[in-house]
């Protein structure tokens, strides 16, 4: 029996190729993902371990780089460093400070992406070198006016040693002389950012305070254990600081990297799962056809004495062989894919540490196992059907008739599942929130399965709608195509399912994405009256000098900073914005519910209505609040002067900068907002650029830029999703090709007769092509409708958290999807249509 199975595999190479391709693509996706994340994780872990080379203990001064009020807190004083240096067994101690530093290129634009533009101190050791940096040209910055740049940044900015370089930190731009160019394993540089090295006193002044460090690294003399150093260092550290052995830190980092990558892993695997799920239909379809084609053969086997289970086993064995072979090929393709992914990431500017591919046994077993399992599972039903063929079928001369088994059972099951799914979706939509989303998720899955089961039932009425149109537009080819499309509802259904699933997901994501994008758009338009927002490229705090400079810019009508701080009331911390009274209402459209914003100038507080309500506060009430960065924090009585409708751009507590500024050593200025005479104009923007001294580290955004900032993110995400779902669509196309090829094969005689009585080649081709388009569009319409419905349901759950939420159905884009589905049909029909047109009429009409 196994030999017959093997022969069958070889005899049906072309048909099995489709199955093999579907399995291959799915397995390639799985193995590519696993190998890619394994490789990445190992490379990053090695890199982080390398950065702790020769270091025994690392101490952290308890500072955070970004965050309100934290800018200058904590730190390790220089004299502690000296004390540690004097300990027994310590060979060297290095102090580090770091923060944002943006480098301008020759045109004054920022090099790098903003969030990975780092500055730090050059800390030469006893040998006069800083082990973390490897200088290829020049040397480290010895004087305050000098800096060193990493190799890539120097190259991008076309800087040579001795050139003068403009560097922006959170304050004004300064010019430094380039003293040297180095290479490093630093994470920011590897992520495609930049690193500027200052002389230590300059860096301390910029990022901490004079004579204080954020971190220190301690290396041991040979023979001293890391633990001994740690024990000796710990008592010397100031309060709030903590120390760890380098080994422990490296392990921790490796673990963090793994868990960060596991999210990526899960997402990619989810898409692989979708691709494989879609592939299942294709595989099941292929095996059904192979069995139907071989009815006589199988019946003969039964007639000469093969048992049912032998017939079934032979089909399953065939699937096993196909599944295994294509999984192996898929795995190899996956290795290529993971290499490809790496270079794609590289082309986005991220430098991924080199290292050979890591192929773990788990990846091999998972990928091959999934491929074989899916193929065998998909072939299970066809195999059962094969086993049921009666031996007498071998004798009948009639061509095997397509299964005309009643669809009643199938339709009943499908209806029940769909109904349960829909009920669950509606329930979830009315529940709202996270629970609702979960309920909808379950419902979405059920209704997708239900609809797929019902697809054969749906095919007749849905295609019947377009049938008359087809006949009218394309004459006889159209009429016949419409009828052929519903001839075998099961097969049409299985073919359309693949497209339906893919398009359900694509449509759902698109509708949600576009809806959110428009909500954000409206939010921006509704809530902002100002013209410009200025912020740091790394979204950190800007220096007060920048705010002052902006106030002096030409054409400024109103300015307010958005200073982030927290206000503690009854032990609960609330996010607060400190703003300029009088100007704030010109820049944000704050809808006042009670009181007046004018009271801000008197040191009163304005609170978002929702927050006030939930705490039982009313205008005129007094609350006791703790504010400021002193230790302990200053407690003061605040009168509520106004309540306003929640606004996405200001915190629930709004205070005057006059009230807050004396309480902080250095305010955390997240943004500065401006209204200009004449609104958004080129001249006004230039005035702001000039006021900031052409600072590459600052972003000036007009309202459109603000919209794009959020919308752009959503679009990028959508495109990534489209790309990943493209895989499922490719498999769907293969499915359509498969079905058509089979249909052409089965209808040879008919097509031959049509050719004989006068249907020319072009019309035969058109008939096949139209059938493909009808089936593709049928699947696409189901996907688009179901996807839009799911998007509506999910939208209902976060309707309340987004003001003015309104579902947007992007008709042009959905239309484009349908158009693409039509194109898919045309492409899929290319080969089958050609072979139908070339059919030899005489063999086709000859009777057996």
């Amino acid at each position, binding site marked *: 029996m196994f030999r017959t199975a093997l022969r069958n595999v070889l005899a049906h190479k072309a048909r099995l190729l489709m199955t093999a391709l579907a399995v291959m693509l799915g397995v390639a996706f799985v193995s590519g993902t696993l190998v890619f994340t394994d490789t990445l994780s190992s490379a990053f872990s090695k890199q982080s371990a390398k950065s702790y080379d020769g270091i025994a203990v690392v101490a952290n001064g308890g500072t955070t780089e970004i965050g309100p009020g934290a800018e200058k807190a904590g730190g390790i004083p220089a004299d502690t460093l000296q004390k540690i240096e004097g300990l027994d067994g310590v060979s060297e101690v290095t102090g580090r400070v770091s923060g944002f530093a943006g480098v301008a290129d020759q045109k004054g634009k920022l090099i790098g992406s903003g969030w990975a533009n780092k500055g730090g101190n050059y800390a030469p050791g006893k040998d006069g070198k800083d082990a973390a940096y490897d200088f290829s040209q020049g040397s480290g910055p010895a004087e305050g006016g000098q800096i060193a740049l990493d190799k890539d940044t120097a190259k991008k900015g076309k800087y040579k040693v001795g050139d003068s370089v403009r560097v922006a930190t959170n304050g004004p731009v300064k010019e430094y002389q380039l003293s040297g160019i180095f290479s490093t394993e630093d994470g920011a540089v590897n992520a495609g950012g930049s690193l500027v090295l200052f002389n230590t006193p300059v860096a301390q002044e910029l990022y901490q305070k004079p004579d204080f460090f954020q971190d220190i690294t301690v290396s041991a003399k040979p023979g001293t254990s890391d633990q001994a150093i740690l024990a000796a260092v710990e008592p010397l550290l100031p309060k709030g600081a903590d120390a760890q052995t380098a080994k422990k830190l490296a392990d921790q980092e490796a673990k963090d990297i793994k868990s960060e990558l596991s999210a990526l892993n899960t997402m990619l695997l989810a898409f692989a799962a979708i691709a494989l799920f879609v592939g299942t239909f294709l595989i099941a379809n292929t095996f059904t056809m192979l069995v139907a084609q071989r009815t006589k053969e199988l019946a003969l086997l039964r007639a000469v004495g093969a048992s049912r289970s032998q017939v079934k086993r032979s089909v399953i064995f065939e699937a096993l062989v196909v599944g295994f072979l294509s999984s192996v090929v898929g795995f190899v393709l996956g290795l290529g894919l993971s290499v490809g992914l790496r270079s794609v990431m590289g082309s986005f500017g991220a430098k991924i540490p080199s290292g050979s591919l890591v192929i773990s046994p788990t990846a091999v077993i998972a990928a091959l196992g999934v491929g074989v399992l899916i193929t065998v599972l998909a072939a299970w039903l066809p195999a059962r059907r094969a086993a049921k063929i009666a031996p007498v079928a071998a004798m009948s001369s009639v061509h095997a008739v397509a299964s005309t088994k009643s669809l009643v059972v199938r339709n009943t099951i499908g209806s029940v599942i769909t109904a349960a799914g829909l009920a669950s979706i509606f329930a979830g939509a009315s529940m709202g929130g996270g629970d609702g989303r979960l309920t909808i998720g379950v419902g979405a899955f059920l209704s997708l399965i239900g609809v797929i089961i019902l697809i054969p039932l749906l095919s007749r009425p849905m295609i019947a709608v377009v049938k008359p149109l087809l006949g009218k537009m394309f*004459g*006889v080819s159209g*009429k*016949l195509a419409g*009828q*052929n499309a519903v*001839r075998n509802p099961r097969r049409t259904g299985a073919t359309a399912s693949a497209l339906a699933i893919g398009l359900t997901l694509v449509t759902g994501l698109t509708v949600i994405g576009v809806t959110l994008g428009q909500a954000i758009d409206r939010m921006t338009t509704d809530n902002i009256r100002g013209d410009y927002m200025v912020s740091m490229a790394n979204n950190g705090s800007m220096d007060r000098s920048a705010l002052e400079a902006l106030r002096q810019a030409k054409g400024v009508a109103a300015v307010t900073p958005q200073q982030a701080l927290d206000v503690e009331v009854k032990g609960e911390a609330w996010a607060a914005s400190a703003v300029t009274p009088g100007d704030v209402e010109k820049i944000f459209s704050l809808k006042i519910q009670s009181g007046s914003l004018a009271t801000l100038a008197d040191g009163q507080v304005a609170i978002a209505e929702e927050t006030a309500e939930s705490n039982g506060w009313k205008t005129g009430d007094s609350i006791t609040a703790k504010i400021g960065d002193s230790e302990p924090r200053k407690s003061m009585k605040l009168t509520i002067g106004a309540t306003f409708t929640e606004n996405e751009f200001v915190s629930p507590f709004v205070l005057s900068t006059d009230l807050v500024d004396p309480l902080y050593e250095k305010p955390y200025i997240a943004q500065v907002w401006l209204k200009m005479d004449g609104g958004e104009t080129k001249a006004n923007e230039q005035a702001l650029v000039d006021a900031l001294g052409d600072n590459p580290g600052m972003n000036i955004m007009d309202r459109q830029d603000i919209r794009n900032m959020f919308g752009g993110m959503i679009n990028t995400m959508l495109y990534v999703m489209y790309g990943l779902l493209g895989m499922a669509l490719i498999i769907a196309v293969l499915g359509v090709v498969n079905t058509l090829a089979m249909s052409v094969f089965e209808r040879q*005689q*008919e097509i*031959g*007769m*049509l*050719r*004989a*009585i*006068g*249907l*020319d*080649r*072009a*019309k035969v081709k058109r008939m096949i092509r139209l059938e493909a388009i009808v089936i593709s569009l049928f699947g696409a319409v189901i996907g688009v409708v179901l996807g839009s419905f799911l998007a509506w349901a999910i939208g209902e759950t976060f309707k309340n958290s987004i003001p003015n939420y309104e579902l947007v159905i992007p008709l042009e884009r959905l239309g484009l999807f349908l158009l693409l589905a039509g194109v898919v049909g045309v492409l899929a029909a290319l080969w089958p249509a050609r072979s139908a047109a070339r059919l030899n*009429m*005489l063999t086709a*009409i000859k*009777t057996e």
Partner: protein
Amino acid sequence: MTTTPIAHRATAVAARATDLSKVYGQGETQVVALDHVTVDFRQAEFTAIMGPSGSGKSTLMHCVAGLDTFSSGSVRIGDTELGSLKDKQLTQLRRDKIGFIFQAFNLLPTLTGLENITLPMDIAGRKPDKAWLDSVIDMVGLRDRLSHRPTQLSGGQQQRVAVARALASQPEIIFGDEPTGNLDSRSGAEVLGFLRNSVRELGQTVVMVTHDPVAASYADRVIFLADGRIVNEMLHPTADSVLDQMKAFDAKGRTS
């Protein structure tokens, strides 16, 4: 042996093959299916082509009907020379001037009886001649079966649909390839009767390949083929005379 010259009658010629040859393969494996055949099919005449398997009778019909290509010679349908036609023109010619009846009925299962009958005109995008269509339908007695699909019809009924399909577009000539091969004798007789009536009453031209002497007896003329050549011709055949002729060929085949 040379081909027997065919007596010329006064009527016009619907189709004519002149010096027609069809050769498969080359060299040693060469098979001659038709060997310089010259034959006329006259208008309003019912011709049967007979001969043993492999005699070339089907090939002759396929070549004359524009379904197959030939190696040399010429074929004419009406005034049209087939040899010079491209596939598209040939297809159009079959659509407009030729009707077909096949052994396996070859109806489209998705179409109703009526739709199958009008299919050639649908392909051409022409409206059928209503009166003519009605008379054809009545002739084959399918009035009450028009909305049935082929799977709901018996073999005889299906072949009657096929006969109606061939007649409905009023072609210059109808070719039948063993039209009664899959039918019982009663249904076969019915179909042959329709074909003969269409010739006698409507002036249709019919050419039919068959190996059944009874079927051939319905024709006005029988042409006998052997080894790709026309070996005899019989006018006004009866089943017995055709059978005798075939027995004679058989005997000759055995003694030679």
